[in-house]
């Protein structure tokens, strides 16, 4: 599902409401038929959210960041972390403090989380912004694999997603936007 809308149309707020970061809404959010508020743990175990702020600590290295964020959901051994970092193109940068990495590389560190987390629902807020051409193609490959594997993803981006599977579009402005 791709969420479209002009700037300020509430895309990020919608995503943060679905994740539960923002609770200023009425009505219910259901996850597999059950209201989210009733099954906080199971819903959060199945969810992976990457916001504008990528959640990568500047002082730590990518390896340490991933080790911590993995342990919040399901602990993962170092080999998978290294493989994930290699897959997103951070081969020789595992132990470089993130403040010395570029914004694009920091974004890739958070994308590496997609590889090591068992979450079935991905919620990605503008994941393509700082990525270069290789990064965009790599992320689209990841999304395709995830959807093929039965997962689901909610993505906000102005970028035309060329992903093999069907892409539903939700336009918050109500008017069809030329892409």
């Amino acid at each position, binding site marked *: 599902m791709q969420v479209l809308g002009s700037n300020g149309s509430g895309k990020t707020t919608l995503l943060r409401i679905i994740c539960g970061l923002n609770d200023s809404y009425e009505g219910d959010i259901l996850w597999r038929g059950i209201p989210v508020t009733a099954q906080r743990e199971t819903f959060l175990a199945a969810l992976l959210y990457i916001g504008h702020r990528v959640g990568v600590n500047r002082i730590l290295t990518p390896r340490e960041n991933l080790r911590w964020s993995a342990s919040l959901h399901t602990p993962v051994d170092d080999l998978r972390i290294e493989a994930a970092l290699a897959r997103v*193109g951070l081969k*020789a940068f595992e132990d470089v403090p993130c403040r010395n990495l570029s914004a694009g590389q920091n974004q890739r560190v958070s994308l590496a989380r997609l590889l090591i987390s068992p979450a079935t629902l991905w919620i990605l807020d503008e994941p393509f912004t700082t990525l270069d051409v*290789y990064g965009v*193609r*790599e992320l689209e490959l990841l999304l395709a694999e995830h959807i093929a594997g039965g997962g689901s993803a909610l993505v906000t981006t102005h970028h035309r997603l060329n992903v093999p599977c069907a892409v539903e579009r939700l336009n918050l402005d109500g008017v069809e936007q030329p892409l």
Partner: protein
Amino acid sequence: MPTLQFSSFSEFLQMGTYSFHVWVVYLLFAMFLGYHLILPGLQRKQFIRLQKRRAARDAELAARAASRHGTNDRSAE
């Protein structure tokens, strides 16, 4: 000519009841001396070793990149 103040070595060690004070001060001074003369040398060796390792790694990375671009250009980064 200044005269020698101590008749025996043991008297020298005692420093007239102030042995602890004087010898702790000179011990601190000796450690201070050692720290300031030896530590920079160690840091220098450690730095040079690190730079050598880094130079070797860069060379290896460059060699691998050169060989990959030489053979095919399709492979992902």
